[in-house]
């Protein structure tokens, strides 16, 4: 959908605002450009609708080189929302919303109908149509600002810190509202912000820039889990990293890597000795390659003591194990739902690599509550 190919921007006087940027995004993605001021995020965004022209490289929208298109035509196909809202004070809400349609020479009747339809998307009544921007609150004004960018059903929308000037409560509700709207309409959004919370909340993909260079590009989970370098870590903030831990840690990071195991060829006596030794009530059964075969517990041993002799005779085939790369978040849910006491962890070849018990979960909860202090000690 949107592709940056070796894009650079050098301003007069040799200041390099954006340096050799290579990015590619899919349709329907919510892309957030983030970085400290002067990192080139706004410049990068404005190059998409040619408010700023790239010095080098090519930007493609649906495989079309934007430099080969008429800039006015290009901009009418891309929605644009700015921080200062930029509603025209001399036009009614209806005129503001449908301005692009007027430029596109839609007939008056259709424009009006469209404005009404859009207004209902943000739960505003049609009587707002004839009001003027100064009669609306800041939050309502920016809602209209967003609607204006949706008027011609543009598939791509650029937003330059659109919620930056709003108070925190309004901002929060507008973010929620807008994220829902974006999902519903399937728009591709390029969103510029310097607020990490906003980025984590809204983005499908976060692009972190610094000094015109790409630092990291990934989903919020990826960035929280593996910040590319110290700059990113600092930018995200320690607090958020700790808070986000249960959401992004993998099972491998919290599992006990030395589960008590036994092989199916061993005797039940050995099994019971092992249990006593380690004070556990069940054992995981593996083969010589450490591939998980199942488990035995103390009750089955007790019931079958007379009849069977080997572990393999009474083994209960294990039905549930998690992959080591699975997220803890999902694992917790499964453990709780299934009422399991533990979950074996396997690698991609179904070899046993560890175990997650309820006790491991206690560690995570402890960390997310006391993590900061524990780290400080």
């Amino acid at each position: 959908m949107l592709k940056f190919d070796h894009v650079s921007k050098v301003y007069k006087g040799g200041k390099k605002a954006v340096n050799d940027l290579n990015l590619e995004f899919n349709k329907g993605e919510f892309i957030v450009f983030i970085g400290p001021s002067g990192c080139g995020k706004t410049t990068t965004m404005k190059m998409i609708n040619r408010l700023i022209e790239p010095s080098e490289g090519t930007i493609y929208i649906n495989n079309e080189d934007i430099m080969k298109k008429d800039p006015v035509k290009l901009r009418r196909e891309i929605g644009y929302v700015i921080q200062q809202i930029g509603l025209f004070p001399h036009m009614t809400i209806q005129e503001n919303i449908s301005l692009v349609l007027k430029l596109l020479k839609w007939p008056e009747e259709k424009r009006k109908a469209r404005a009404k339809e859009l207004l209902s998307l943000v739960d505003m009544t049609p009587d707002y149509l004839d009001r003027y921007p100064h009669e609306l609150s800041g939050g309502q004004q920016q809602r209209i600002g967003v609607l204006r960018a949706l008027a011609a059903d543009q598939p791509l929308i650029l937003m330059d810190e659109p919620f930056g000037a709003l108070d925190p409560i309004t901002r929060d509700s507008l973010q929620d509202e807008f994220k829902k709207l974006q999902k519903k309409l399937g728009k591709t959004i390029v969103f510029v912000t310097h607020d990490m919370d906003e980025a984590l909340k809204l983005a499908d993909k976060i692009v972190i820039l610094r000094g015109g260079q790409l630092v990291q590009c990934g989903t919020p989970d990826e960035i929280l889990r593996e910040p590319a370098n110290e700059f990113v870590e600092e930018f995200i903030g320690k607090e958020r990293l700790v808070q986000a831990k249960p959401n992004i840690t993998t099972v491998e990071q919290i599992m006990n890597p030395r589960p008590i195991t036994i092989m199916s060829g061993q005797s039940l006596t050995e099994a019971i000795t092992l249990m006593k030794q380690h004070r556990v009530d069940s054992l995981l059964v593996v083969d010589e390659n450490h591939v998980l075969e199942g488990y035995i517990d103390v009750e089955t041993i007790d019931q079958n003591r007379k009849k069977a002799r080997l572990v393999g005779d009474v083994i209960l085939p294990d039905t549930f194990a998690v992959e080591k790369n699975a997220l803890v978040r999902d694992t917790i849910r499964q453990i709780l739902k299934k009422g399991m006491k533990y979950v074996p962890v396997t690698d991609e070849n179904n070899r046993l690599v560890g175990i997650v018990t309820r006790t491991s979960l206690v560690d995570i909860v402890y960390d997310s509550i006391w993590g900061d202090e524990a780290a400080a000690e």
Partner: protein
Amino acid sequence: MSAVIDFLSQNGMELLGKTWEHLYISLLAAGLGVIVAVPLGVILTRFEKAAGPVMSLLGMIQTIPSFAILAFFIPLFGIGKIPAIIALFFYSVLPILRNTYTGIKGVNTSLLEAGRGMGMTGWERIRYVELPLSIPVIMAGVRVSTVYLIGWATLASYIGAGGLGDYIFSGLNLYQPEYIIAGAIPVTILALIVDLILGKVENKVTPKAIREKNKTA
């Protein structure tokens, strides 16, 4: 009082004719001024570098005494209405131009960015954003220059353009104060009425929301 009635009964029709003459000289010059100065003002906002020199050049022309200009135009355009209108036109340009320039420069840049970003052409930005928003300032310039022009148009009779100046000059030459008054009072009334009408026009062409906002501000 009877003197006034006497004067009017003798010169009434002529006075009306002169007033009309006066009005159309001034309004024509002001109209030409608007036609030239508003587009020029808009163009100057697009060429910032030229704006300074053009403004100071016009400022200089403005400082030349009006009598001198009228005299200066005699060899170029002869005498009569046309040179008078041209000379007055020169005076009307600067206030309108300056107000147009300032008005358009004063339009919030974020609105212009929004307009550009949503795909307005340069002309559409002027037509839908810059002009409507700077109308009050431009109209103020038009009012000021038109009222001035009505005053200055009295001098135009000196080069044979006619108008109410004829009375004032004859009054001065013949030492007849009633002629001076007969010229001066209608000029004043004319200026007031035109100012009033232009005020109404200004109100009419200013977008409703801007009008309301200015009222509350």
